């Protein structure tokens, strides 16, 4: 038989409990306090008797007690988890958490307010940390919202303010072409201007996509498997030929299966790859574009001759604003291949690049989902 543990001494439990006990008379004066609390405050239980509860609260705590706690206690009979600071006799403060209940007699008369107090030094320091973090987060969110507003504005400027004058320019050139007598030289210049406008439009489109993709929104696709892809790709080739009439472009399309894709986007991908080949490829070697379906894949590849892309540059090709060495007149924003890659990813496809002394080839492949 094990020995019975000694009976708990309730008086000692009250006096030396690991928390503070405090009873207030209805007028707010201290009617009883345990030794633990008196020790925290730096005085004796006897000295606390009859003093107002206010005397051991910081100023903020006193006002909060009068304006918030006393009413709440009176109305609902209890208040839990209050954060306070006790004022010690030496003027220092101890953070505490307290629960309070009203003790009433059989007639419902308020006899005491009983308060249990716990030291909360650590808890208060991490609460302060949380508040600081929250404040910082709010500042950051505010700054983020401002940036977002700027982005929206930026995208709108790109889309509207840049495209509108280009459309006006294109319409004006069209009028010149059709309605005004032009010399041979004049017609050549007008054709070149058409090409430049098309290139500028393509750059704006890339920039818009970059802004949307990078800064919010992302690329959205409107897929359509019912419509044929080949005519769209043929149109792209025609446009590039118009822009670069001096270059030979060999096209071969063998798309036998329906392709569930965003045809506008795939056209943009092909157009960017061709424009890239025109800018970087050797002028005397034909550019070729081939598109085919097979093995449950759509592949579109564009190749050109010319110098090899160095190994280390290949990794950078699809990064935004990456620009290889080209003639100044052909310099773009460095977004073409980035957009190509984004379009490929959006279709669940991939981009591959191979570059040898014979040719540089970009290949897009995407799965054909039945």
């Amino acid at each position, binding site marked *: 038989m094990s020995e019975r543990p000694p009976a708990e001494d309730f008086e000692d439990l009250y006096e030396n409990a690991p928390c503070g006990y405090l009873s207030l008379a*209805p*007028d*707010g004066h201290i009617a009883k306090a345990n030794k633990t609390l008196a020790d925290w405050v730096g005085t004796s239980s006897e000295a606390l008797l009859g003093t*107002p509860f*206010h005397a051991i609260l*910081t*100023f*903020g*705590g*006193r*006002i*909060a007690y*009068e*304006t*918030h*706690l*006393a*009413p*709440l206690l*009176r*109305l*609902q*009979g*209890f*208040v*839990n*988890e*209050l*954060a*306070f600071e006790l004022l010690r006799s030496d003027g220092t403060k101890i953070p505490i*958490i307290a629960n309070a209940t*009203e003790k*009433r007699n059989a007639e*419902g008369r308020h006899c005491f307010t009983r308060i249990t107090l716990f030291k909360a030094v650590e808890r208060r320091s991490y*609460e*302060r940390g*949380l*508040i600081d973090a929250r404040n910082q987060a709010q500042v950051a969110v505010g700054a983020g919202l401002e940036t977002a507003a700027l982005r929206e504005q930026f995208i709108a400027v790109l889309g509207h303010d840049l495209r509108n004058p280009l459309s006006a320019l294109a319409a004006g050139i069209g009028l010149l072409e059709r309605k005004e007598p032009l010399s041979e030289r004049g017609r050549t210049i007008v054709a070149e201007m058409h090409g430049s406008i098309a290139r500028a439009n393509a750059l704006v489109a890339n920039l818009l996509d970059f802004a949307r993709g990078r800064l919010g929104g992302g690329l959205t696709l409107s897929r359509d498997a019912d419509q044929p892809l080949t005519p769209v790709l043929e149109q792209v080739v025609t446009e590039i030929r118009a822009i670069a009439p001096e270059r030979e472009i060999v096209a071969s399309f063998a798309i036998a299966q329906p392709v569930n894709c965003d045809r506008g986007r795939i056209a943009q991908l092909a157009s960017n790859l061709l424009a890239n080949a025109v800018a970087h490829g050797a002028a005397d070697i034909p550019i070729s574009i081939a598109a085919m379906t097979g093995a449950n894949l759509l592949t579109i590849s564009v190749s050109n001759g010319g110098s090899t892309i160095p190994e280390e540059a290949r990794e950078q090709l699809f990064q935004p604003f990456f620009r290889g060495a080209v003639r100044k007149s052909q310099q773009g924003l460095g977004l073409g291949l980035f957009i190509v890659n984004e379009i490929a990813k959006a279709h669940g496809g991939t981009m591959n690049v191979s570059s040898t002394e014979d040719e540089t080839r970009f290949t897009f492949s995407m799965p054909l989902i039945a």
Partner: protein
Amino acid sequence: MVFKRNNVMISGEGTRSILFSHGFGCDQHMWTEVARTFERDFRVILFDHVGAGRSDLTAYNSAKYATLQGYADDVVEIGRELGLADAIFVGHSVSAMIGALASVKAPGMFSELVMVGPSPCYIDSDDYTGGFSRDQVLELLDFLADNHLGWSAAMAPAIMGNADRPELSTTLENSFCATDPEIAREFAKVTFLSDNRADLSSIVARTLILQCRDDIIAPQCVGEYVHEHIPNSQFRLLNATGHCPNLSAPDEVAAAIREFV
């Protein structure tokens, strides 16, 4: 809609209207016990200031409520909506001054003002004792900011079973004194930095000042100052202690109001 914005509650069977206005830190529940004693022979109006209780928090606007006049304008709007004339305004704590401003703005709306624990200015100056130093007020505002977590938890709507006072559990289902912590901080700032001493002499309504003993928020000398500066006023020292006699001694407060009106 003014009634929804201020959660206006109307009860009672009299023809004369008595409107009770709560102070900083609580809501209209603070007046429940006093107000019910007037229901037999008065039209009793209770409401929450915007930001407190069940007021419409979306109606809160830092600029409008940056002065007590913003709150007083709401009282005037409520009064106009109800067609109040020669009514009684009972304001606790900061609401005493809100009522004073409302009575000045809308002459004839309130013929009687009852101020419970009023203070026209909380901060001491050379020739005035408000009971607080400027540093103490700043400490209080810091306290409210610093205790955000603890306070919002304590003040958040709580559903309770109240064994001692079952009538409260049944009649008041949701919460007491629920305050949005951010708004409470701004209300504290407006309240404790206010100075309406210059407005006291403009009050024409008959005024009763009810003063508690041992009120650290509105000490007796402040209540006496208010009495000296309001032309047609009476001063009455209650036996109640603390700052909320409407809760700690509702019978005494109700009897004093009844005697006055």
